[in-house]
């Protein structure tokens, strides 16, 4: 008797769950201001950067390491005849190194003054993000790289401020080797 009751209960619960899952999600899109971001992966974290500053995404191949540069400069790559430097943000954000491979991508950022590549472990794609969904970066993040952060979305995507990165003087390497 008890087993019958139990199985009836279980059936009831399962039916309720299937009904809930069968419901369509609300597709009501509220007209809000969006920015288009390109999402990529650095180590285990997901980062986003505004697509306006992205020229293109390129596969990392045939890169040349440079001597006498800071550690965050990975080297230079040849993108269809154009020589661009590649910056490894993981060095800046103190993220663990995963090693380089064919799957690594270079996101080429540009504005009217600067043009360089940022190393990404994987590029996830582009998507629009509502501006009011972007929250301020957590105060716990301090130190180097804190000024490059713009905010964080509800999906825990860290939005980088591409403008600041492009305009930062520290990234420009101009050292004289004696």
């Amino acid at each position, binding site marked *: 008797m008890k087993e019958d009751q139990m199985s009836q209960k279980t059936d009831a619960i399962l039916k309720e769950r299937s009904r809930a899952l069968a419901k369509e999600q609300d597709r009501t899109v509220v007209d809000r201001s969006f920015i*288009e971001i*390109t999402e990529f992966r650095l180590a285990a974290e997901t980062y986003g950067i505004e*697509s*306006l500053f*992205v*020229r*293109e*995404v*390129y*596969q990392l191949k045939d890169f040349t390491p440079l001597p006498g540069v800071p550690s965050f400069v990975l080297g230079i790559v040849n993108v269809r005849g154009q020589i661009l430097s590649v910056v490894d943000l993981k060095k800046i954000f103190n993220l663990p190194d995963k090693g380089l491979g064919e*799957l690594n*991508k270079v996101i080429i950022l540009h504005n009217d003054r600067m043009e360089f590549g940022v190393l990404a472990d994987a*590029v996830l*794609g*582009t998507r629009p993000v509502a501006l009011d969904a972007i929250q301020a970066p957590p105060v716990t993040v301090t130190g180097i790289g804190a000024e490059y952060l713009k905010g964080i979305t509800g999906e825990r995507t860290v939005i980088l401020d591409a403008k600041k990165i492009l305009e930062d003087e520290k990234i420009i390497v101009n050292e004289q080797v004696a």
Partner: protein
Amino acid sequence: MKWSVGIKIGFGFTLGIVAMAIIGISSYFSLNSLINATKLLNHIYYVTNEVTAAFSELQDMEIGERGFLLTGEDSYLEPYTNSKNKIEASLKTLRQLTLALPVQQQRIAVLTGKIDEKLRSLNGAIVLRKEKDFESARQFFLSSKGKEIMDQIRVLIGEIKTEENDLLLQRSSQVDASAKYAKDLIVWGILLAALLLSLTGVMISRNITKPLNVLSAMASRAASGDLSMNISPDGRSDEIGVLTQAFLRMIESLRSIIAGITDGVAMLGSSASEILAATTQVASGTAENASAISETTSTVEEVRQATQLSSQKAKNVSDSAQRLEQVSRSGQKAVEETRIGMSQIRAQMDSIAQTIVRLSEQGQSIGGIVASVTDIADQSNLLAVNAAIEAARAGEQGKAFAVVAQEIKILAEQSKQATTQVRTILNDVQKVASAAVMATEQGSKAVEAGVKQSAQAGEAIRVLAESSTEAAQAAMQIVASSQQQVVGMNQIGVAMENVNQAGVQTAVSMKQAETAAKDLHELGQKLKGMVEQFKV
């Protein structure tokens, strides 16, 4: 005292002989001188007699002459003629007798002359009487000094007699002296010799008897069985010493012999006891033997029956072994077929393994294709992203393019997922293929092992067949030998019967031996009692 007893006794006897010889010789010489003296005395008497005879003959002649003269008859002349010869003979004898005395010789010569003178006068008277007559003869007779001559002759004879008597006196005293000397010599010599001999005898007897007495006392003690005396030898080297030492050695050897006999008797006693015990045991053992033999006899009968049974069983075994041989031959054939089948399986397995290897290689080429598809999907994705970026940059006009780009991206994602699935499947396939390769390898190994094992099984079955053949032969032999055993068991039964009889005889003999051992034991006890009489 280094002399031997013989020398001592000889010395004593020699002493006696010497004493006797001395006494005898001196007596001999004394007697000899006495005899000589007596002979001389006789000589003297002879001379005296002869002189007296010659004078009487002369007187006879004178008487005859006077008769003739008176008568003239010749018959009266007969004494004259007789005596004339006798006188001459007497004178001659006298001369011979008195050769040692010159005085007497002289006197005899004078006497002879006087006698011749007398005889001439007598003869003259006789001649005259015969030729003439009485008167002339008487004249002549008267004229002749016949009486004077006769007196002279008488004187001469008296002188001779006196001389001889003096000599006789002298010689008789000599004879007396020598006789006395001889008597003394004999008496004293015998006394002295007796004394000396008795002294020597006493000494010798003491010297010999004393130790002999000691020895005889010891000998009588020994005779009564007491051998416990202990005498040190006195160091004599004569017969007594030798006898003493020999006696001591005899006592010593008797002691050792008695000791040996005592030991031997003791041993004899104990041995007899042991023999008695042993014979008693043997007697009882013989009785046990008899019962054991009867048991053995029944056991032999049982064994005989069992042997017959085993003979039958061995026959059955022989039949079974022959059947087993046939079965094992067919088993050998089956194993041979198995081996051939296994070889075919091995060939099949080899081809399966090659097929799977080819499959694996093709899977790898599929992997390469999948990789290139993945790469293409990745690049499509990148293109989609770039297109989306370009669309975003184009703003409102790019919205539709952004949707297309999104769709391309989704397609790329899907193809990527598909390739991932393909790769996963391919990996699984490759893993399975590897596992299959491994399995086929193991399978071929197993087949190899199976081939080997089937070969071994064939060999084993062959050996089994041989063994079963041997077993069949052995069983046949067992049948034969068990029949022989039956025969042997019968013989053993007969032999056991004989043994039983022998055991009965042995029991009787053992009874006798027991009695003999008892007698021996009693004899040992007796001997022990006899030996115990000896004091060692």
